[in-house]
């Protein structure tokens, strides 16, 4: 079994080492200006939040897969998962603030033993839209997960699933041997209960992450290709494709370094900086919460342990919407990943 960087005690499992690398000679020696400088040039510094619409909760880093590009460094050997006590605080916050979208992620969020309880409580608390970032293979990983499609349907969950390609080779290279076939099986199970089918209202979106050190192409064209190929070869339907740029964090950063693509990839992100992507940056309308209840500007800042400052309330137990809305969003060089080309967020392109 492939181990997480953390289990390997790998240097890049330390967030300080990652940030040192990201702020290396490329920025202090080679004339590239920092992300902060790019924001200043566009009169957007400090970056400020808009309305808090997306409450993104990471239920833990435990996962049945160990994907090569995972910025979470998730895997079967990761034991950090959210407790029911922290979930209860989140439910209370949802009841009080009525966030538009609750986005559940991981790891494989379904592996948290309180996952189903949590979804049920969020629904009771009035959550309008609940997204589950489902890796697909979890549905077929064990009998106890086989009824997840029915559970999702019952609670009107929007399913967002990763599938980097419509053929096995690239998918398996990124996500592990056999993942493509299992993903197809899971997609058929989701289709069978109505997910991705017209008129059912059950939304099944796919996420495209490039399987390598390149940027995603046009989201609409990719969606059209995926729809055509998945329908033709497997009779599978889905709603939308979200194209997401890989950010140079954790295992994807390790891959970039090992494959000697790191500098070229960072230069590519910097050169592709698109000022019109700033307005739609997800950190402006999202709060990301880790398994332990700490709050971050986004999932990527969470993985780099760049917390929301204590003065703005850095833990859900001290959640204060006014203080949060007055915060300055923390940025670093990884943020170039969200402003490159058509922009990137957990909801796909932004510009």
């Amino acid at each position: 079994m492939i181990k997480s960087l953390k289990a390997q005690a790998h240097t890049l499992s330390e967030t300080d080492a990652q940030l040192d690398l990201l702020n290396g000679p490329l920025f202090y020696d080679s004339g590239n200006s920092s992300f902060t400088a790019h924001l200043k040039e566009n009169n957007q510094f400090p970056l400020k939040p808009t309305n808090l619409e997306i409450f993104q909760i990471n239920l833990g880093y435990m996962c049945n897969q160990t994907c090569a590009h995972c910025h979470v460094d998730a895997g079967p050997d990761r034991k950090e998962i959210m407790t029911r006590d922290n979930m209860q605080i989140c439910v209370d916050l949802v009841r009080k603030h009525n966030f538009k979208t609750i986005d559940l992620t991981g790891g494989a969020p379904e592996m948290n033993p309180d996952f189903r309880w949590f979804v049920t409580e969020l629904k009771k608390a009035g959550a309008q839209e609940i997204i589950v970032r489902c890796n697909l293979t979890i549905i077929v990983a064990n009998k106890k997960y086989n009824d997840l499609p029915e559970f999702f349907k019952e609670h009107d969950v929007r399913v967002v699933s990763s599938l980097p390609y419509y053929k096995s080779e690239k998918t398996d290279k990124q996500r592990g041997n056999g993942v493509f076939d299992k993903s197809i099986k899971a997609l058929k199970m989701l289709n069978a209960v109505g997910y991705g089918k017209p008129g059912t209202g059950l939304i099944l979106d796919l996420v495209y992450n490039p399987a390598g050190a390149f940027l995603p192409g046009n989201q609409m064209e990719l969606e059209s290709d995926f729809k055509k190929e998945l329908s033709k070869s497997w009779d599978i339907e889905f709603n939308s494709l979200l194209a997401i740029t890989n950010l140079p964090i954790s295992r994807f950063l390790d891959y970039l370094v090992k494959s000697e693509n790191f500098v070229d990839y960072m230069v590519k992100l910097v050169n592709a900086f698109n000022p019109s992507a700033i307005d739609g940056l997800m950190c402006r309308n999202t709060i990301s919460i880790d398994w332990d209840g700490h709050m971050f500007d986004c999932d990527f800042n969470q993985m780099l342990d760049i917390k929301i400052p204590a003065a703005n309330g850095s833990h859900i137990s001290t959640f204060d919407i006014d203080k949060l809305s007055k915060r300055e969003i923390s940025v670093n060089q990884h943020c170039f990943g969200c402003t490159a080309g058509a922009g990137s967020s957990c909801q796909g392109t932004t510009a």
Partner: protein
Amino acid sequence: MEKTYYDPADLGKFGNIADFEPNLAKKFFDYYGEVFKAGALTEREKALIALAVSHTVQCPYCIDAYTQETLGKGCSEAEMMEAVHVASAIRGGASLVHGVQMMNKAKKLSM
């Protein structure tokens, strides 16, 4: 003076050609941007054509750029290599079809 004619980092500096002559550069890049937008052909199809042409003109910058573009647009390695073979077939064919000219001349000159 550099010791080699090509430096991969120069690809990222393509836009700097505007430093010496901004007006023509702007016209070129505007045109370039329009050409590669989806029209009667998709962006994906245009990227595959560009990849093939890159091999015909043997431009290392173009090969670098359009390998990335085609990968990003979801082209498979097989599609990319078939595009290169199209370039190769046209190049090879362009030489070979002149064999007819050689034959015509040889026949004319021979008894």
